[in-house]
């Protein structure tokens, strides 16, 4: 297997239990692998939780780590995908002094060119939201920086795959079976 380092989006479907995040992050930590970003949410299935994280490792490492993740009792299934296989996005929020909107016409151009969205405006500040690839958010950040950014925050990656996730049917099947068993009892 190739020893080339790739960016992988790892999607982990789990039970919603306290401590599971610790268990998953420990798998990366003990191999000294940095988690570049992490987000947690509900999944498309009721009662099933989903972690999406991004790591830069070789495919060989990735394959082994997937096995270690799936070994965890409360993990239902884990998948990994390359950037080419996913539609992914991150979101950045920029808090900027409102007066700059009028004093610096360039800011309006940046907003327009980047397709960023103004979330709120008040007398003191306005908040700009930019979703997209990391590079696009970084570009807006670079361009706004000289004017002064009061606060900046960027979310972890969220992603969906281009191909079907086999998990949905699998989970639906489990759920149907459980409900059938429960109804019988």
């Amino acid at each position, binding site marked *: 297997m190739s020893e080339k380092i790739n960016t992988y989006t790892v999607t982990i479907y*789990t039970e919603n239990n306290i401590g599971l995040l610790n268990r998953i992050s420990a798998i990366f930590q003990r191999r000294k692998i940095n988690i570049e970003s992490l987000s947690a949410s509900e999944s498309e299935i009721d*009662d099933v939780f989903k972690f999406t994280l991004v790591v830069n490792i070789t495919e060989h490492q990735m394959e082994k780590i997937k*096995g270690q993740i799936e070994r965890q*009792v*409360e993990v239902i299934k884990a998948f990994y995908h390359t950037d080419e296989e996913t539609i992914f996005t991150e979101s950045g929020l920029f808090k900027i002094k409102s007066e700059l909107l009028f004093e610096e016409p360039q800011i309006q151009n940046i907003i327009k060119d980047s397709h960023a969205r103004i979330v709120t405006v008040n007398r003191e500040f306005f908040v700009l939201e930019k979703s997209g690839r990391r590079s696009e958010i970084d570009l807006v950040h670079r361009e706004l920086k000289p004017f002064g950014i009061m606060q900046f925050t960027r979310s972890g990656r969220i992603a969906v795959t281009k191909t079907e996730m086999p998990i949905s049917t699998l989970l639906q099947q489990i759920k149907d079976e459980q409900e059938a068993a429960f109804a*019988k*009892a």
Partner: protein
Amino acid sequence: MDVKTIDKKQSAAATTTKMSGSEALIHCLVAEGANLVYGYPGGAIMPFYDQLHIHQDKIQHVLTRHEQGATHAAQGFARATGKVGVAVATSGPGATNLITGIADAQIDSTPMVCITGQVGSHLLGSDAFQETDIIGISTPVTKWNYQITSAKEIPEVMAKAFYIARSGRPGPVLIDITKDAQFEEFDYAYAKCEHIRSYTPTPEVQEDQLKAAAEAINAAKKPMIVWGQGVILGEAEEEFKAFVEKSGIPAAWTILGVSAIPTSHPLNVGMVGMHGNYGPNVLTNECDVLIAIGMRFDDRVTGNLETYAKQAKIIHFEIDPAEVSKNVKADYPVLGNSKETLSRILPLINEKTHTDWHQRFKDHDVIEYEKVIKNDIHPTKEGLTMGEVIELINKKTKGEAIIVTDVGQHQMVGIRYADFNQSKSNITSGGLGTMGFALPAAIGAKMGAPDREVVAIIGDGGYQMTIQELGTVFQTEAAVKIVVLNNEFLGMVRQWQQLFFDKRYASTEMKNPNFCKIAEAYDIEAQKVSKRENLEAAVEKMIASKNSFFLEVMVEKEDNVFPMIPTGASVSDIRLE
């Protein structure tokens, strides 16, 4: 806790009774057949201990002298019986003292449930007296862990704990219970757990994998089996024996695999790995098909992976999908429980003898015997060897004993030379290499298998790491036979210092106390042997004794264990001297 993770059908079935959380714990343990637990009381676990006292007719609690001892005793019990071992401790230091045993059970796949008390739920996170985040601390070394803060969670979580600990690839589970949850009254009902949605303990056996593996086995000219503890954990001893005998394939074992078939079996070719036998190590790099069964290609088994069995097709029978191709790429994985896979592959394989190939192993045995074994078990020099002590134990127990070893030179010598007639007879700390394991593990093994002779073989270093458990032997009158092979050194480290650090014996020489006096202080009959002429009678006396017995044997100070694969070397570069 999500109720949906357990079959609703089962939870709905049982009837309820009002009781406290701590009393419920007793009922859960009884329901799981755990009538023997090891532990140590303290503040946060006192409500449970109160119930243990009240219900002592149902559950025997053994007070060890340290919580680490409780875990090792639970492990020894589990390894001797195949049942789940149980260890109990209080919060804070009680809980942290369990960690070494838990890590040991994790890496050696030993089924164990640990119960820890925790400070009251209103105090969680407040740095309360004896509060520690044992869930956080134990996460990387447990198969599963859970903190209970409400009594109503107890039945379901305990059912899950035992199910997870014993199913699939077994392992340790830790359940942390706050003090208020132990006091809280609730309606108790118990239903065994038999399914968890997110957990597939045993992968389904795939017919095509069996067929592909069988074809490779049938086509092999020089096949070799390496089996591990998976055969014992899967209770597949009979199926394994049938497989070995029908295929006629030379079978070697890992340190945890031994005793699955009798050591005297003609197809047993010895141990693989760092201090394993000459033949199976060298011929690993000559076989054309390597059949790994219930083992995980630990680095102590494989040596340098770059040169490990590169010429061979690898067949890997394994229950844990994460182990397949983790260290050694499997050409033919066979996933599933060893009992099922081995019985199902049996009709697919051809009957063979591989006579010439067997001869190769025998040729290597002759070389190893001349260069190593002869001098180990029938020494002509004045000093006593570890090997001759093991040989005498074999003679006096006729290979019927459970041999519990600690970690170091005596462990390698002990396991290399011990005779095992029946399964679950070798109890040792394999993956973690935990010094101090043997004495408490032997206590647990003796209680689990009271009709069997249990001999603990320990070095003078490891013995002093859990020597306080002599107190447990004294109080319980567990008739364990304790053999300390005393070379007044941390022998294995000293060996490495001699071979790889120009004999700079940094902190390995030990000034030891009078071990016999210590044993006698606990009312344990003790004997020290320094001369060969006294050895056999002493071993005989020890084995004949109905009670616990301590035997100290002064062995040669600077003997080395050979064969040896130096770290990073190839298995075929194994050294005989």
